[in-house]
């Protein structure tokens, strides 16, 4: 912030903007760490693996921030939450949330459906190789994604999440 003020005073607006961007990114990462602290340490027998806690940003802007935590137990049951920019799911979320016609395209074989989590639109998907994935869209680019390995069924996923 001090560098931004100095650059602005010297009418070096390009440097002022750059310093402001760095300050914004710093604040966003701190906010991300606060969100991480607000997440529970245990969820119904699953313990948080804090060594895998992540707060990362590619550049300033909430849409570039990702927050991640993993909970697991000794029996290979694992829950991973990713908040913010879950890049690998962005295309999937856009496809489903923006195109209602996709939701019931292939009722017998489809492995996803739309649900609601605390009033928010969400998609739940199942694959043998990775278990359940629950995606809740928040705004245009942010989302919360739960990846659930070795959960019994979608009801259990929704209760946990």
């Amino acid at each position, binding site marked *: *912030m001090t560098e*931004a*003020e100095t650059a*602005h005073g010297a009418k070096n*607006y*390009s440097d*002022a*903007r750059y310093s*402001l*961007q760095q*300050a*914004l990114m710093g*604040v*966003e990462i*701190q*906010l991300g760490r*606060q*969100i991480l602290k*607000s997440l529970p340490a245990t969820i119904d027998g699953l313990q948080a693996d804090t060594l895998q806690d992540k707060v990362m940003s590619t550049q300033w*802007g*909430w*849409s570039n921030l990702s927050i991640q935590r993993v909970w697991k137990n000794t029996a290979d049951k694992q829950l991973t939450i990713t*908040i*913010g920019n879950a890049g690998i799911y962005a295309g999937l979320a856009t496809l489903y949330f923006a195109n209602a016609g996709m939701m019931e395209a292939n009722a017998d074989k489809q492995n996803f459906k739309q649900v609601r989590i*605390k009033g*928010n639109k969400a998609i739940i998907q199942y694959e043998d190789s990775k278990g359940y994935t629950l995606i809740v869209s*928040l*705004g*245009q*680019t*942010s989302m*919360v994604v739960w990846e659930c390995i070795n959960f019994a069924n979608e009801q259990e996923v929704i209760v946990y999440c």
Partner: protein
Amino acid sequence: MKFIITLIRFIAFTTTGIAQDFAKAMTSAKTAYNAGKLEETHFALQQAMQEVDLIVGKEVLKLLPPKIDTLTFNAKNDNVASNIGYVGATIHRIYEKGNRKADLSIISNSPLVAMMNTLLNTPMLGGMMKDGKTKTVKVQGYKARLEKQAGSTDDKNDYKLQIPLGSALITFKVDDCTDTQILDFANTLPLQKIAKLIQ
């Protein structure tokens, strides 16, 4: 969960800025940060960035030529807008005479820049998308994409030139001209000075 949703929705907004006092915004940011109020700090820093964008926009407008060919501009139509969110600041000027116009817009952090750079720097991709109406040119050493469009009458053409400058995109559209003319007009724009200000 509610805290997360409230926080994300508070921060992930797009707004068109009006003039804000930079010093006041920075003072608010530092005060809020020292008090541990990160959301307020973030908001104040965004206000400060909007102010910088508006100042830069006005400085860029001062660099632009007073006329393009016989077309002149009306300062009342000049526009600088700061958008916090996906798109950065937008600087816009129109040159006109009668029904003929030349439209110049500069968008910093434009989402189209990545696609434009891909087309300009990947000859195979640019070739695949060739339809006879576009070509890659150079303006003051910068690669640009020139597109021919239908003009006001069948025998005339409009041309649109898109020049990526770092993360910013300059879009220059001139009615009823030739490709040589639009390139000559573009060469009157001080691109290096503009790039220095907006990057």
